[in-house]
């Protein structure tokens, strides 16, 4: 019974990601049209500068209720500056911004009362225990101790920390702290949850748990805004993505749309002995697009198997070959380039 309940909304999600209602109101009846149309965040020409440095150079964003929206981009792309403006903790330098229908410049506290924020760096009070952290934070929202006692039980259960209520934060693992930070951000039942790199520095198991918890929130209708530079995370959690680079949004769409637009369906990876550029040149033209790396050549194509046959037909013998589907990582690297950004 519980299993069916959990599966149903997920199936509805999978049936058609949110693209459809971007162009026209949802007609399938899976979502209330009024709900689907509710735009919770709307920015146009949003700009942020610190002195001469322009961190965000005029971006447009629309995020609807219940959506999971991802901001991708290399370090310094302007993701965190954008998130801080959306979280109403950083005044914008220019452009229009409305969060929950209100202007952050005029109604910051009222908006923040309905937001949950998970910052990039944990900012739990390490001197206090888990319950005290929830209590202290909840009181900032004007919530009563009685309400917070009940709420804490619920939140710790959600974060799978029920048995750690009396542990000092010092004693928690990185994954537990992150889950506690997420639990804390839910203390006010936020309508929008903003997460800045929620799983950076976590081990794979801890990341899986965080993803699973975030998906649970999404199923409950909480709107998620996430920054990340993990493509698997973006693919797992986000209905819609915006890729930022140098303060601008350079690409936007569902994961599937982005792959279709910026990559091919499949990729053939051919490995050649290092420095053997002649062989690499010889396969050029066999894919829609070719990318030559130090030790590999990537052929972007709609049919990797056919491409591999064509390679062999030309008498080229790579050391090894790998056929795979295109991923967001391919898209991301195509858009933002392969140079290291520090």
């Amino acid at each position, binding site marked *: 019974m*519980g*299993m069916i309940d*959990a*599966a149903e909304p*997920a*199936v509805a999600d*999978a049936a058609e990601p949110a693209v459809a209602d971007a162009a026209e109101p949802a007609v399938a009846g899976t979502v209330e049209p009024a709900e689907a149309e509710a735009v919770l965040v709307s920015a146009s020409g949003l700009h942020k500068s*610190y002195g001469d440095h322009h961190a965000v150079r005029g971006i447009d964003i629309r995020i609807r209720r219940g959506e999971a929206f991802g901001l991708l981009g290399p370090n310094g792309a302007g993701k965190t500056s954008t998130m801080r403006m959306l*979280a109403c*903790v*950083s*005044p914008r330098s220019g452009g229009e911004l409305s969060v929950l229908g209100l202007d952050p410049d005029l109604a*910051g*506290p*009222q908006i*923040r*009362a*309905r*937001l949950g*924020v998970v*910052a990039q*760096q*944990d*900012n*739990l*009070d*390490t*001197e*206090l225990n888990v319950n*005290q952290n929830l*209590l*202290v*934070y909840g*009181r*900032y*929202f*004007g*919530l009563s101790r009685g309400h917070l006692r009940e709420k804490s039980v*619920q*939140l710790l*259960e*959600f974060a*799978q920390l029920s048995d750690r209520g009396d542990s000092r934060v010092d004693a928690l693992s990185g994954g537990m702290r992150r889950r506690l930070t997420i639990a*804390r951000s*839910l203390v*006010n*039942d*936020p*309508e929008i949850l903003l997460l800045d790199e929620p799983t950076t520095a976590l081990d794979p198991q801890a990341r899986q748990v965080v993803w*699973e*918890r975030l998906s*649970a*929130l999404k*199923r*409950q*209708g*909480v709107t998620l805004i996430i920054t990340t530079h993990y493509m698997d995370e973006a693919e797992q959690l986000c209905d819609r993505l915006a890729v930022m680079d140098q303060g601008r949004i350079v690409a936007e769409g569902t994961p599937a749309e982005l792959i279709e637009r910026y990559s091919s369906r499949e990729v053939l990876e051919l490995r050649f002995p290092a420095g053997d550029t002649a062989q690499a040149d010889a396969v050029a033209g066999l894919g829609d697009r070719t990318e030559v790396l130090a030790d590999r050549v990537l052929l972007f194509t709609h049919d990797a198997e056919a491409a591999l046959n064509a390679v062999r037909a030309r008498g080229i013998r790579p050391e090894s070959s790998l056929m795979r589907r295109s991923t967001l990582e391919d898209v991301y690297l195509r858009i933002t380039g392969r140079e290291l950004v520090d």
Partner: protein
Amino acid sequence: MLDTASTASTPPAAPAAPAPPTPWQPAPQTSWQAARCVLGNLWIRHRVTWRSTFISSVLQPTLYLLALGLTLGAHIRPGPNTWGQPYAVYLVPGILVTRAVQNAVGESTYPLLDGFRWTRTYWAAVSSPLEPVDLLNGQVLWVAVQVLESAVAFLVIAAVFGVVTGPGVVLSLFFAMLTGLAVAVPVMAFVASLEREGPWFTVLSRFVILPMTLAAGTYFPVSQLPGWLQPVAWVTPVWHGNELAREAAFGGLNVATLSVHTGYLLLFLAAGYAMARRRFTRRLRF
């Protein structure tokens, strides 16, 4: 199919998400309520960490009183320089003010840098409906409460040693608190603009706070200082605090001195507050 599999693979212990968000309008907080809430939270923290500050805030002034007042003081004859009081009695208001200043500064340095930089709890707080100024207000209230708390504890001990002269000392308490705040709030402004600790806290305590508490009329009257140094003592808040605390304790408070000294301390406090407010906002809302 895929979804069923993923659902089945989640551990059975994994509970459902909390109840779906309900349109919920939080009670609007006035800035007084917000500051009180910050104060309450600092109190929750204090209940966990009070042991580490207890020694410096209560035991240390007691040792000063014993060491200076009851031993050294035995060799000092009461006279005009001690307001006609035995030296130990003369010391009590001064130690009240001095310790208030040191406690207040202590509460305004490391704990603030902790909030800004180490545990970063201030950043969490200002992503709630709170504004940076609410944090500042709560912190100022907290310093007032802390100073008052340890000063009361010290006075009780002093009374046990029989060096408290009369009820006027209760008024000295409030002058000590005012002096503590007048020094601490500009320090908060300074700390809010620090990127990291560096040498600054040592410099502050050794070259500003310590000389001020030693030479501005706590242990001996300013009139005993070399002439050129006396004006320096007069501009320190500690001297004004000492004058007020002693006048309150031993009599001699009048409208003229009261308004000059409290006026000076309030001016210090107001200027410091204006700076601190700007610094907090600039730091947390860039």
